[in-house]
């Protein structure tokens, strides 16, 4: 026998060769994939090789290639919108607080009543920081809020506010009270049947009509209301899935023990139901992060709107592609990050359960 390493090595190359060129279909697929890769080369050239990273004046970008200098020039505007520059440290702290809260929420060790307190405290801190007006912080009206903090606040607040409503709707839909059940089904199905754009119109145009004239909610608040209602309907369906997966013996046993309804819900039903639906819950969270981008349609100044209005600056030669790519990159990092982290946690839980 010769050295066993050599045939193994050759066979690895051989295997790869068979995979790539083994039969006609493989050759076709290889040519197709290489075609796609080669098709991406001009895009790579545009984005990296021909790109302008720093320029003395915007006119240099007219030479072709990506104008990343535009992003660095407009970075503050895209990330923080019209927020007063000298107060931007507050917006940065808000973003950091949100990231910390999300990381804490995703870790199973933190789940429980403590987390609710943490969230309440976090939201209070964020609103005080963004709004100001007390503790010696300058007042910043919501019309000046913009960029990344608005995107993140809308996502986090809509999900956070929607969660209790979603639990009530899901329990109502599963419960025995016919009025409650039908009202829950009606609300959930109507909201899920409407596109979010429609709901945003409702909130922006109809909400002021439905409230007494002296109640004024600003644009950001109305948008948040629409996002909350939307998230509540979708979260309710996810939680209902968890409730359905709960063995009925759990509820019967707690009823036999005479545990009051809400205490049973809090200590027995919800912990088990929610644990079952963590993957779809994470998914809904990602969907809501992406949905916050729609507020552009009703004129809320989120990160995407900021990028769009930055791209209209006539000093720069049509940099809308770069601006949208940059925003897309930030959304990608957020959404992919949440997905990857939750997959990591899920794998951890699964391996614990199996061992």
């Amino acid at each position, binding site marked *: 026998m010769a050295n066993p390493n050599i045939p193994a090595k050759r066979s690895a190359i051989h295997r*790869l060769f068979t995979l790539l060129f083994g039969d006609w279909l493989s050759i076709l697929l290889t040519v197709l994939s290489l075609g796609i890769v080669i098709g991406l080369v001009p895009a790579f050239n545009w984005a990296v090789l021909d790109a302008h990273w720093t320029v003395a004046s915007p006119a240099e970008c007219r030479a072709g290639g990506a104008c990343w200098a535009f992003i660095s020039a407009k970075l503050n505007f895209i990330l923080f919108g019209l927020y007063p520059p000298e107060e931007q440290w507050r917006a940065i702290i808000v973003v950091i607080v949100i990231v910390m809260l999300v990381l804490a929420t995703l870790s199973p060790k933190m789940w429980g009543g403590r987390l609710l307190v943490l969230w309440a405290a976090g939201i209070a801190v964020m609103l005080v920081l963004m709004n100001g007006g007390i503790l010696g912080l300058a007042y910043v009206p919501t019309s000046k809020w913009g960029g990344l903090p608005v995107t993140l606040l809308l996502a986090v607040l809509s999900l956070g506010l929607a969660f209790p409503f979603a639990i009530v709707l899901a329990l109502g839909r599963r419960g025995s009270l016919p*009025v409650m059940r039908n009202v829950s089904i009606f609300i959930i199905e109507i909201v899920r049947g409407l596109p979010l754009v*429609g709901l945003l*119109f409702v909130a922006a145009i109809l909400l002021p*009509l439905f409230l007494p004239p002296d109640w004024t909610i600003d644009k950001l608040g109305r948008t948040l209301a629409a996002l909350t209602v939307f998230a509540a309907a979708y979260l309710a369906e996810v939680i209902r899935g968890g409730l359905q997966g709960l063995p009925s013996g759990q509820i019967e046993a707690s009823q036999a023990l005479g545990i009051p309804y809400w205490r049973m819900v809090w200590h027995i039903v919800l912990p088990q139901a929610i644990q079952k639906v963590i993957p779809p819950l994470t998914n809904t969270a990602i969907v809501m992060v992406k949905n916050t981008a729609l507020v552009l349609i009703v004129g809320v100044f989120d990160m995407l709107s900021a990028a769009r209005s930055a791209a209209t600056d006539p000093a720069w030669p049509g940099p809308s592609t770069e601006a949208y790519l940059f925003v897309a990159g930030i*959304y990608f990092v957020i*959404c992919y990050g949440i997905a990857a982290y939750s997959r990591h946690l899920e794998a951890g839980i699964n391996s614990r359960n199996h061992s």
Partner: protein
Amino acid sequence: MQIALLGGLLGLLYWVAGNAVSNLAERGIRTGFDFLFHPARFPISESIIHYTPSDSFLWAFVVGVANTLWLSVIAVVLATIGGLFLALAQLSKHPLLSRLAVGYVTLFRNIPLIVQLLFFYGLVTSSLPAPRDAFQRVSGVFLSLRGVYAPTLVMGPGGGWVIAASILLLIAVIRVGHRRFRHIRLLRRLPAYAAIWFLGSIVIWWLADVPLGLESPALHGLNFRGGMYLSPEFAAITIGLALYTTAFTGEIIRGGIEAVDKGQWEGGRALGLRDRQIMFRIVLPQALRIIVPPMTSQYLSTVKNTTLAVAVGYPELGLVVNTVINQTGQALESIMVMLGVFLTVSLTVSLIMNRFNAKIALVER
């Protein structure tokens, strides 16, 4: 307790309605649906059915619905075909192709659709030249900032009847073929269908003696006239919606295929079938049962996602509703129209897909 709940809800409704009535009266906004029959007096930039500003608001809504459905059908068809290819690419043993497919899904799923739409719209409108210096890669096809203009077949008077007769012929060919020649394989029958239909249509056209000509777009002043037209708005929303939805349908189909028991593959191999035969004859038909329910909700969310065309200015229902609200102030009625349309579409699609689901589930024994 239920009575209290019901009372509370009715009270809330009464309060909201009272507020709405007093607010509407205060702002001097008319209510009621009779505005639907007044002339709309606003233009709609493109539509698949005929519209002029002198048509009624009702017709404007119909045009919006037609555009929404048109966009939805195109996006759903493209995304279903694309999703199947994407799923097969992801599952293939080909190292390069499967990685490209996985990369595609990761990238397109994690970026909001509206960002993608604005990106494509920006790309289309910023990278193409003005109509005067339009690209002409293929003779007669003009690619410019204003969209794509291509030559189109135009028929003289009576052309509609010829098309209708041709469609009737197609239906007849398929029905007769399915009844009489069922013993022949479908793949063998399809070319025969196509040939009979094509020749038959030519005979109908010749008998009807309708003139047929090619109309090419030509530059008049600042823009093109004539020919077939594809606007950049429509292009951006179609490309964006199809690419985004493909990432999701691809994942649904892949999930369905992976959920089919591994024994089916092993059984097929033991019978000496090739991988391709196992996939298309054994695995995919069974995966269909798993795929249909999530696919239904994906189709529905695609229909709802067409409303994002507002962001690039394609006149689907959402944009028409928005324009009507700005014109008349009758927000309540317009939004009720929108709600009604989307609920109808949702219920219809669920109904059709449930029927389909029941049909394929019957195979199970």
